[in-house]
C-alpha cells in the first residue's frame, strides 16, 4: 500500500488520482502508524513552507518522515520541506537533503510556471527519462544544487529538479501533472 501524507497543502488528491490511473490504490493519511506501515510513502504538496512545517511538527510527522526506511517521494513543496531550510517564512525544514531553499532572484517571470526539461545527473528515479522530456513546474522557491542532486533544471539559475539520497527521493516538478513523462516517473517510483 502507498501512503500519501495528509497535511495542510493542496494537490494531494491529484497524486491519488494519478496513482489510480496507473492502477495503484493509495491511502491519504496523517496517522503515523499508517505512514510507517506503508510500502512506499509520497509526501506531496503545494503551499507555504512555514505553515506546512508547523502542521507537520504539531502532529509529530516531521520525526515520522525522517525515520522512514521505505522509499519516500517528496513532490514540489514536499521536496523543499525535505531540505535544510527555506527562505519562505524563514523555516527550518526536515534536513534530509543538504540543500537550502531560496526564492528565485529577479530575471524571469516568477512563479516558474509551466513545462521545462531537466538534465539527469544520477540516481534511480529518473533513469530512462530523455533529456528533452518536459515536466510541469509551479514554484517560486527552489532547492540549491547539492551532493544529493539527481537532476538539474535551469530557470533563472540551475537548481535541483530532483534529489535522491538512500530511500529518499524528491522532485520539484509535479509528476502527477506531467502527462506521459510524469506517469513514467511515477511508475519508476512504484517499481523501486
Amino acid at each position, binding site marked *: 500500500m502507498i501512503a500519501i501524507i495528509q497535511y495542510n497543502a*493542496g*494537490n494531494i*488528491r*491529484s497524486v491519488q*488520482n*494519478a496513482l*489510480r*490511473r496507473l492502477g495503484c490504490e493509495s491511502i491519504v493519511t496523517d496517522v503515523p502508524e499508517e505512514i510507517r506501515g506503508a510500502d512506499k510513502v509520497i509526501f506531496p504538496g*503545494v*503551499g*507555504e513552507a512555514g505553515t506546512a512545517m508547523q502542521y507537520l511538527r504539531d502532529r509529530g510527522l516531521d520525526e515520522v518522515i525522517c525515520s522512514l526506511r521505505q522509499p519516500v517521494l517528496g513532490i514540489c513543496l514536499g521536496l523543499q520541506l525535505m531540505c535544510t531550510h527555506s527562505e519562505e517564512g524563514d523555516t527550518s525544514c526536515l534536513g534530509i537533503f543538504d540543500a537550502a531553499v531560496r526564492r528565485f532572484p*529577479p530575471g*524571469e*517571470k*516568477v*512563479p*516558474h*510556471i*509551466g*513545462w*521545462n*526539461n531537466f538534465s539527469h545527473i544520477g540516481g534511480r528515479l529518473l533513469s530512462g527519462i530523455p533529456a528533452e522530456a*518536459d515536466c*510541469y513546474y*509551479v*514554484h*517560486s522557491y527552489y532547492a540549491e544544487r547539492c551532493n544529493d542532486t539527481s537532476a538539474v533544471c*535551469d*530557470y533563472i539559475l540551475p537548481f535541483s529538479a530532483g534529489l535522491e539520497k538512500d530511500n529518499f527521493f524528491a522532485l520539484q516538478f*509535479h509528476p*502527477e*501533472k*506531467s*502527462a*506521459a513523462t*510524469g*506517469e513514467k516517473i511515477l511508475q519508476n517510483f512504484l517499481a523501486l
Partner: protein
Amino acid sequence: MLKKRIIPCLDIRDGRTVKGVNFVNIRDAGDAVELAKRYALEGADELVFLDITATVENRKTLLTLVEKVAAEINIPFTVGGGINSVADVSALIQAGADKISINSAAVKNPALIRELAGEFGSQCVVLAIDARLESDGWKVYVHGGRTPTPLYALDWAAEAERLGAGEILLTSMNHDGAKTGFALDITQAVAQQLSIPVIASGGAGRKEDFKIVFEKTEASAALAAGIFHFGEISIQEVKQYLRSQNIPVR
C-alpha cells in the same frame, strides 16, 4: 528551457462546453470531460474551465465536473467562475483543481486575492481580467463582460500582482471570438510591467496568431477556445508550427 504554453479554455454551462462570440451567441461544443481528455492527449499544456453562468446566476462551479476531470486528465487545470470566498476555493482544490481563477469577486473585494494567496499560495491564484478597449484606454469589465468598471486593465493587473496573484489571464473582449489575432498592445503592456506570468486570451484564429503573440509580447501562454473545440485547428498543428518557427513548446 521553459516552454510557451498552449491552453484550451472550456467555457462551461451545465456541464457542457459552450462558446460564444464577443461573449454572446453561445454555441454548444460538447461534453466537457470528453473534450478535456481529448485536449490532454493532443498535447495541451494546461486546461482552463470557466463556469460562464456561475457569476451571473450566483451559482457555484460544478464540483462534480471538477472531480471527474481531476480523475481523468494528467495535466494541470484551472477552474473559474463564481468564486467568491476561501471556502469556494477550498472546495475546488479538494475536488482536484490545481489553480482557480477569480474575476468579478476580486474587483469587488481586492483583499480576496491576498486572502487566497495566503491560504493556498500565489501559484494557485489566477486573476482573470476581461478588458475592453475604450476611448480612454483598456478598461476592466466584470460579470462575464456585462458590467463596465472604472478600472484600467494595466493598473488592476499590477494591483493584483501586489496582492499576491500568481498569474494573469488577460482576455481582450474586443478580440474574443473574432479570430483576428490576440490584442498585442495590452498583452505586452501587462506582461512587460508585471513579473508574474501573463496568459494572452481572445482572438486566436490561425496558428500564426500564436507565433505573433509569443514574438511580439512576453506572454507566457496563449489561451484559445473556439478554434480548438470546433476542430478548425488542432493543438498539435499549432505546436508543430511554433516549433518550426523556433518558439519553444512542449
